[in-house]
């Protein structure tokens, strides 16, 4: 069986700036992939290209045997690619239940063969919020949440789409060590449920404990890909992070 996601020769430019060049990547089902790289190395741009927020100029992306090129973001979401945003983007005028309800109504119910009734959707919303420990805030607005709760809601909203592949884009940035552990626990649990996860993160301790495989981007190019301990010992990676 081919890989879940296959990226071939992906490239993205912003004017004269080459953000990504010749990225090849294959993500296997069930992987816990860590994606690291210095600021501005193109990690978020890669996620944006893969999830359809940005259009890549060159290369192709195949997800579960389907060509994604030219597909807009919501179509990719419906195929099973979900993401959380680096800066949480809650629907700030809607309470938490309705925040979760949107992916249920527009993604899960948009898939052929599935239809959640109103009551089922309501139950599912509360279940998903319960999974990330936000059950008691279900009727609150996002502005009543703390940073870590906001990240959890962001994850719950991505998980609501019933994805097969989840990109967690810096889901832990700015959190305290114990909060990082909380988010990691959520991610481990999702992976056990069968969701392939790509973790984009700066906190090395979190990445190293989570990932079964590590990909390193530097200046828009992939310079290392493999077993985490080996990848960080790669001389090119050391140079990028620590200098000559």
């Amino acid at each position, binding site marked *: 069986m081919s890989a879940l996601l296959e990226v071939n020769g992906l490239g993205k430019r912003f004017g004269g700036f080459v953000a990504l060049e010749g990225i090849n990547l294959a993500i296997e089902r069930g992987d816990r992939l860590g994606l690291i790289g210095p600021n501005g190395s193109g990690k978020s741009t890669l996620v944006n290209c893969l*999830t*359809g*927020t940005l259009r890549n100029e060159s290369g192709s992306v195949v997800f579960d045997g389907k060509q994604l090129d030219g597909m*807009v*973001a*919501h179509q990719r*979401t*419906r195929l099973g690619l*979900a*993401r959380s*945003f680096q800066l949480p*983007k*809650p*629907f*700030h*005028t*809607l309470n938490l239940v*309705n925040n979760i*309800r*949107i*992916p249920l*109504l*527009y*993604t899960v119910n*948009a898939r052929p063969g599935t239809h959640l009734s109103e009551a089922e959707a309501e139950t599912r919303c509360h279940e998903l919020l319960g999974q990330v420990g936000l059950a*008691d805030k279900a009727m*609150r*607005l996002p*502005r*009543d949440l703390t940073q870590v709760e906001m990240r959890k809601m962001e994850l719950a*909203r*991505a998980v*609501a*789409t019933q994805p097969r592949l989840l990109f967690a884009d810096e889901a832990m940035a700015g959190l305290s060590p114990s909060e990082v552990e909380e988010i990691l626990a959520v991610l481990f649990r999702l992976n056990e449920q069968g969701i392939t996860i790509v973790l984009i993160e700066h906190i090395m301790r979190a990445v190293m404990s989570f990932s079964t495989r590590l990909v390193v981007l530097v200046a828009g190019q992939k310079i290392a890909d493999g077993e985490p301990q080996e990848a960080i010992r790669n001389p090119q990676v050391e140079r990028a992070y620590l200098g000559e």
Partner: protein
Amino acid sequence: MRNGTFWALAIVVGIVLLVVTRLVTNEYFFFAGYVVLQYIVLSTAWNILGGYTGYTNFGTAAFFALGAYTAVVLHKTTTLPIPIMMVAGGVVSGIVGLGMGYLTLRLRGVFFAIATLAMAIVVQTFIVNWDYVGGSRGIYIIRPQQAPLTGSYIEYLYSIMLIMAVISVAIARTIERSRLGLGFAAIRDDELAAEAGGVPTLRLKLIATALSGALMGMAGAPLPYYVTYLDPASSFNLAYAVNSVAMPVIGGMTSWIGPVIGAVLLGTIQQLATVTISSALNLLIVGLLLILFVIIAPNGIVGLVRSRRRARSAAAVPAPQPATREAA
């Protein structure tokens, strides 16, 4: 409010207004009432795009006038009754709304607003140079001698607009509570996150512009019969655009009742001011009220009431989180 209650109330309000007007002997009441009802339709229509999806449209006058001029063309070529003309006006404005949406919805915020204003000027220029509908001179419309139903002709127009107001409010309310309304709200709050959640944002925005434009066109179709003399300067008047923005802002943009409250309040004040003070004072009142509300109640009257309620329930039941900022 439950669905049943809403419908019962809507029908009761409609019937009461219709019956009460039978007791009114002064025709002026119908003239004034027509304008207020027309603004309920316009501000409700504006709110579908502006309030629900968050795209500010300054081109209300264009959609409204297109409806009116569709009626003019039909008046000259056919003998169709006004309700049919309204449907035709709605179709024309709806199609223009769809086209405008397709061309401009890539723009956000203030750029979209500017584009709609520009569109209004383009449409006005087109009408000014179209001699068949009177061009810049304007055109006289002679009303049929008798109203199709009982009563005077103005009473007939008033009744039509009353029904139209009830229909448009019902549409807005239905949307608000549907999957579509939730999708609109997602677009308003964050378009990228909406797409990531599977919301087909472009399609939903096109639905909003087409529907909003169509309702404005329907409100405009009876206008030639109301004024009996239609010219571009008055039918494309900026007052329509300003009022249809101001009324939802003052009433509250997140709920169907907001535009209704705003239109009744502002429309009535304007009518009173026209009679008692001067007709030129209208926009000054709108401007002052708008400034006042933007400062003291940015979420309109509905927002003001809601935050009061929230504060009260937060005080009654000590929540794990401190009282919200809104309450402060």
